C-alpha cells in the first residue's frame, strides 16, 4: 500500500493541518511516512506545498518524483494547476474552487476552473462554502481532506479518529463541526466519482 500525495495552497491556508491529520492516520496504522513542507519566506502569502508519502514499505525520497503523485489536494484552484505536473496520469486532483486573489494579475477564476475540469480525474468543489454550511467556516482544508479520503485505501473511521485527535484541545463543538465537514465532503466525492 502506498499513497503519494501533494498538498498545495497559499501560505496561511492550513495545508500543514491536512498533512498533520494524514500523518496521524499513518502513525495510527503503523505505516511509514515522509512528509516535507515549506517553511520561511514563502509562508508569507506565497505558493506553498507539502509532499506526503505514506507506505507500508520503505520510503526513500522525501520528495515525490514529478508525474508520480497519486493525488493532488489543492486548497486553491490556481495552485492546483501550478503543481498539476506532479500528478500521475491516473492520479486524482481534489481542488477548492474558491480563489485566493492576493496578486494583481490573478486570472479569471472560470478559466482556472476550466483547466481543472479538463483533467481526467478531478473533484472540483467549493470547499470553503461546504465547510461554512456544515458549521465550520475555517475548515475548507478538512473538507478537501474529506473528499480526498474517499480515494484512499484507509477507512473513514481512521480519518475521523485523527480529526478528533487534531482538534481535541479546541473542544467537542469544534471536533463535531470538523467531523461534519469531513463527512459531507466525503459524500460529495463519492457522488462525483460515480458520475
Amino acid at each position, binding site marked *: 500500500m502506498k499513497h503519494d500525495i501533494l498538498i498545495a495552497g497559499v501560505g496561511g491556508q492550513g495545508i500543514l493541518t491536512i498533512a498533520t491529520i494524514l500523518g496521524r492516520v499513518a502513525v495510527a496504522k503503523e505505516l511509514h511516512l515522509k512528509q516535507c513542507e515549506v*517553511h520561511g519566506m514563502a509562508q508569507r502569502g506565497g505558493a506553498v506545498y507539502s509532499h506526503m508519502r505514506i507506505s507500508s514499505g*520503505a520510503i526513500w525520497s522525501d520528495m515525490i518524483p*514529478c508525474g508520480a503523485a497519486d493525488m493532488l489536494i489543492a486548497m486553491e484552484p490556481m495552485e492546483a494547476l501550478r503543481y498539476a505536473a506532479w500528478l500521475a496520469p491516473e492520479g486524482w486532483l481534489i481542488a477548492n474552487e474558491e480563489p485566493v486573489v492576493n*496578486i494583481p494579475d490573478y486570472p479569471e477564476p472560470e478559466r482556472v476552473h476550466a483547466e481543472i475540469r479538463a483533467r481526467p480525474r478531478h473533484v472540483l468543489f467549493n470547499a470553503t462554502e461546504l465547510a461554512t454550511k456544515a458549521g465550520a467556516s475555517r475548515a475548507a482544508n478538512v473538507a478537501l481532506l474529506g473528499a480526498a479520503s474517499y480515494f484512499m485505501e484507509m477507512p473513514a473511521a481512521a480519518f475521523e479518529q485523527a480529526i478528533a485527535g487534531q482538534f481535541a484541545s479546541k473542544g467537542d463543538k469544534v471536533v463535531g463541526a470538523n467531523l461534519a465537514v469531513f463527512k459531507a465532503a466525503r459524500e460529495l466525492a463519492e457522488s462525483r466519482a460515480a458520475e
Partner: protein
Amino acid sequence: MQHTRLFLGDEAIAQAALDAGISAAYAYPGTPSTEILEYIQRAPEAAARNVHRAWSANEKTAMEEALGVSWAGKRAMACMKHVGLNVAADPFVNAAITGANGGLLVVVADDPSMHSSQNEQDSRFYAKFAMVPLLEPSSQQEAYDMVWAGLDLSEKLRVPVVLRVTTRLAHSRADVRVRPPRPENPLSPPPDSRQYTLLPGNARRNYAALLRKQRDMIEAAEASEFNAALDGADTSLGIIAAGIAINYLRENYPGGACPHPVVKVCQYPAPEAPIARLIERCRRILVLEEGAPYIEEMVRGHFRKSPDVRGRIDGALPRAGELTPDDVAAALGLAHPPALKLAEVVRPRPPQLCRGCPHADTYKFLNEALRAYPGSRPLSDIGCYTLGALPPYDAIHSCVDMGASITMAKGAADAGVRPAVAVIGDSTFTHSGITGLLDAAYERTPMTVLVLDNDTVGMTGGQESLSSGRLEGIAAGLGVDPAHIKILTPLPKNHDENVKALAEELAYEGLSVVICRRACIQIRKRQ
C-alpha cells in the same frame, strides 16, 4: 528499549542533542535551522535539566558561547543556517585550532535552491577549510544517530564536529527511533591553559596536532557506520552518493536496489579507500551530492589524468539548486514521463507582507517623504521587510547580508549620496547592525537609519527579539544625538505626521535613527 517518534529533521537533531547529554544549545534563527532550538525551548527535559536554550544575538556569539561550554568540559551545540556560518567563521575556524574539551557540535543547515536565502553555499567546504570532520545525514534517523556519533567523535578526537543538513531533510518529517538519554558531563575545564590561548607559539603547536589528526579523521570516516560500499553487478557505472542523494538514487529503482556499485558518503573527510576501489572497478563514475560539486572535484582531479566522471560539473546534473529524484533519473538515463507543461493561466505568486503589517505603513510614509529626493534609493537588509523591494512598495534597493543596510548606507554617504537611508529590522539590528551604527555615530555620518521595530524575529516565525523596547537606549549609548532619535508608530492614521517627522530627519545633515515601532501582526494574532 527504543521507541519511535515522528520528527522533522531539525527536531530529530534537537531531541538527539538532549538525549546525548548536551548542557547548552545556542542559535540565531534562520531558515532552515530555526526549528532545532525552538524544539529544545519547548522540550520538558530541557527545562527540567535547565539546558541553556535562549537565542543568541548572532551566530558568532552562539558559536563562542558553545565553545565556552566545551571549554568547561560539557557538551554543547551551536545551530545556524549556512550563511550564519560566515558570521561565525572566525570562532569556528579557530575552534579547530583550540580543539574541543567537552563535545562540540556545530549544526549547519544549508539551503540549496535558496528557498529562503541569498546564496546556496555548501558548508562542507567550511569543514574542510577548518580541517574538522563533518556528518551529513541521509535520513531523519541518521540525523538523530549522528548527533550522538558527532559528540562522541568530538570528544574522542578533541575537535569540533560539523553536522550538515539541507532544507529538504531539515523540513521533512519521518519516524525516528530514539535512545535512552545519557547524563551530562561534569564540569572539567582543561588543565593546560595553552590549549585555548592561541599565542603564535601555542597556535603552531595546536595546528601541528590538528594536522596529525587528519589521518584519524579519514580512518574514522572509513570505519564509519554512516558510510558504506554497496555492491552492484553492473560495473559499467559506479556511483558516489552523498547525504540525501542516496535516497534519490534508490527512489529510481524498484525496492531501492541499484544495479551499480555505490559508495554512500555521509561522514567526511570523504573515505578514500572505498572511493579508490570504486574508480578502479568501474568504467564511469557518477557523483550525486546536494550542493556544490565537492566530492566530484575531489574525484575528478584537475591536473592529473581523471577517471570518466559525471556530475554537476559536466552538466549530467544541474550545477545549481537542490537535487531532485527527477534530476537523478535523468543523470542515470532512466526513462521518465515527459513533464506536463504549466497551464498558461498560472501566474507567479511571490510571498508578500501580511495584511495589516506595520512595515507596509512604514514603506508608504518612507516613499512619500522621499518624493522630495527623486532617484533616492534606501539600502536595506534581511527579514520580512525585504519584501518591500517588490511592488507595490518598490521602497528598498538592496539586501546583501545581516547588517549591511547600515554599513552600505554609510559607505554611500561617505561617497556623497544624499540622503543616505538605511532600512533594517530590530533583530537584524541587534544581530549585526549595532557595530555599523557605532562607526556612523563615531564619524557623525549624515544618514538616516530606519529601524523597523516589530518586536520579534518575524520572517522565521516570531522568535524573541533581543532589543525588545531598548532600541532608543542602544542608539543613544552608541553616541547618536538623542534629539535625532525618533520613535514613530506606523499606522495609516499617523501617515501625515510620520511623513513630516521623517522629512525633518532626511533633511538633517547628520546621523538620525528613526524607530518605526509597531508589533508584528502575526505575533499579535497569536497572543
